[in-house]
């Protein structure tokens, strides 16, 4: 029983044992391997890596297994692991224009250099339960060869759409990075307001997909409209380089799978700026389009002050958004209400009783 005031130790041990048993499920079905989770629940792994802020498919898959498929719990596990890892350096900025593209779509141009590459997507599948999957692995439908001018050729350059628009000067310029300038690190410094854009993007990158999704949706329904177009979504592998002091140059330390979303937002001028398109930016590990798109919408909404837009909706309120985006923080504080609060509750009881007594006494006196 949970109720025991003292001696909860054995209860906790038993709860853990029960949890382990429940996690395993029925013994007559084979146990899940992390390779299966990585390979067949890949998008769950992507999400856990993104919000766990750690690019390690094996650890993320293991966390999902340990968390019984509860992704926020898995993200929590990954974060708690990540925080123990030593930091030996900062990577060079990733060049997403040089990504090896698996998917690349633009909603602003019908065709463009590098082409539209659908890649693996649910976008155009009819959501009919495929009962065939239940009976085991069916051979996948055969892929037809791409059209002659097919964009599958990974060697062709695939310039970023925003760079194409920028040639005409119709979109704001990206601020040039200052070499050697310090970059915010929200895992090392407490977030301060107003936050710089780098800190804000870091916060959104590890922010809860559901929270960001709903906020982004609210901007589309009038609560802080940003007139967005998907300039581009690209998913693929990008090289990570590290500048090694001893060598004096940057070396490649591996590839990461990334989803990048560049929202192009209409802007008719104001705040001392001319009419031009503005940007919202989203980046996530793995194939996490919903996340990257939501992030890009909110990034733009949060730039309200820059463009002289009135801030009156939740998605435009930096402090509101950034303080509540982290699901590990949020779930901790919401769920902590399950913990004993006997002492505080007792104090409230005493107060209520005192107030009632005073009220009754006053009534009696009338």
């Amino acid at each position, binding site marked *: 029983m949970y109720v025991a005031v003292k001696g909860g130790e054995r209860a906790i041990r038993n709860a853990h044992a029960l949890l382990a048993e429940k996690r395993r499920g029925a013994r007559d079905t084979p146990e899940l391997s992390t390779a299966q989770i990585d390979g067949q629940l890949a998008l769950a792994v992507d999400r856990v890596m993104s919000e766990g802020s750690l690019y390690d498919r094996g650890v993320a898959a293991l966390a999902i297994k340990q968390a019984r498929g509860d992704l926020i719990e898995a993200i929590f596990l990954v974060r708690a692991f990540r925080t123990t890892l030593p930091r030996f350096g900062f990577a060079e900025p990733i060049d997403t224009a040089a990504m090896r593209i698996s998917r690349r779509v633009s909603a602003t*141009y*019908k*065709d*463009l*250099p590098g082409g539209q590459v*659908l890649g693996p997507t649910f*976008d*155009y599948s*009819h*959501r*009919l*339960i*495929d*009962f*065939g999957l239940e009976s085991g692995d069916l051979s996948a439908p055969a892929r037809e060869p791409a059209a002659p001018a097919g964009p599958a050729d990974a060697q062709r*350059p695939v*310039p970023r759409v925003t*760079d*194409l628009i920028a*040639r*005409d000067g119709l979109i704001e310029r990206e601020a040039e990075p200052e070499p050697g300038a310090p970059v915010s690190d929200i895992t090392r410094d407490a977030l301060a307001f107003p936050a710089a854009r780098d800190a804000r993007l870091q916060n959104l990158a590890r922010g809860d997909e559901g929270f960001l999704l709903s906020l982004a949706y609210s901007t*589309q*329904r*009038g*609560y802080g*409209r940003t007139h967005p177009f998907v300039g581009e979504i690209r998913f693929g592998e990008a090289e990570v380089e590290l500048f090694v002091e001893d060598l004096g140059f940057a070396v490649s330390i591996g590839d990461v799978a990334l989803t990048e979303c560049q929202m192009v937002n209409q802007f*008719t*001028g*104001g705040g001392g700026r001319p*009419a031009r398109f503005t940007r919202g930016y989203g980046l996530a590990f793995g194939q996490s389009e919903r996340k990257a798109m939501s992030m890009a919408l909110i990034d733009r909404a949060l730039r309200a002050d820059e463009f002289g837009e009135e801030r009156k*909706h939740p998605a435009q309120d930096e402090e509101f958004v950034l303080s509540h985006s982290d699901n590990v923080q949020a779930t901790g504080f919401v769920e902590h209400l399950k913990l004993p609060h006997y002492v505080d509750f007792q104090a409230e009881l005493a107060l209520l009783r005192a107030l009632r007594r005073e009220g009754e006494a006053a009534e009696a006196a009338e």
Partner: protein
Amino acid sequence: MTARAYNFAYLDEQTKRMIRRAILKAVAIPGYQVPFASREMPMPYGWGTGGVQVTAAILGPDDVLKVIDQGADDTTNAVSIRAFFVRTAGVRVTTDAEEATIIQTRHRVPETPLRQGQILVYQVPIPEPLRYLEPRETETRAMHALAEYGVMHVKLYEDISRHGHIATTYAYPARVADRYIMDPSPIPKFDNPKLDDCPALQLFGAGREKRIYAIPPHTSVVPLDFEDHPFERTKFDSACALCGATDAYLDEVVMDDAGGRMFVCSDTDYCAKRQTAKRKDAAE
């Protein structure tokens, strides 16, 4: 799972009746947004679930269906929706705007003039024209009931005072039958004049927002403007690079990363027909 597990055109007959009642009400009150019990569809909200439900409710076995997105029959979502109705209803499909009895569209009105007996079904993301001025539905419904549209004119006026002209280029609001202001869905304002006095029935379905509205044939649809700042259709500096059309809405295609651009008809059916006609002329 086979298509046989589903009714003709996916939706069950009860649901179709419910949607048809909403459509009848919408036709009876032009431009008024009729709430309806929108269903979960096997494609995501935002992909045209409203249009698909309307089409499913009005589609008969003898209909000939055309589906376009951005004016084109070959865009991925148009292909997908067309395939959906081929699979679930087995109806005949076409890319020919004249042959079609029902045309489902996203973001365009065909360049080929519609005729009596045809139905144009629009996919609508945000049915409420006042939404970006007033986010609350409770407020906007009252504003429509009272025909209290001043705020919209103020918005357009503010555009003019800031930019010298009205800065709305698509989803341009219009007044239907001298009463309700409606959102024509995100068609370019280039297409607005085609809505007015159109011989075809125009139906608008918004699945996520659970609204249907309609423009019956030969109804007046007037884009909002001011006497001294009349509504202006978007004009193009160039002609279509494929068919030479100067009266059509054009897509910009980026040719290279050195600034190369090409303009082509967004309406692929219109463009293809013009190209065929040109080739025939040249051959004769």
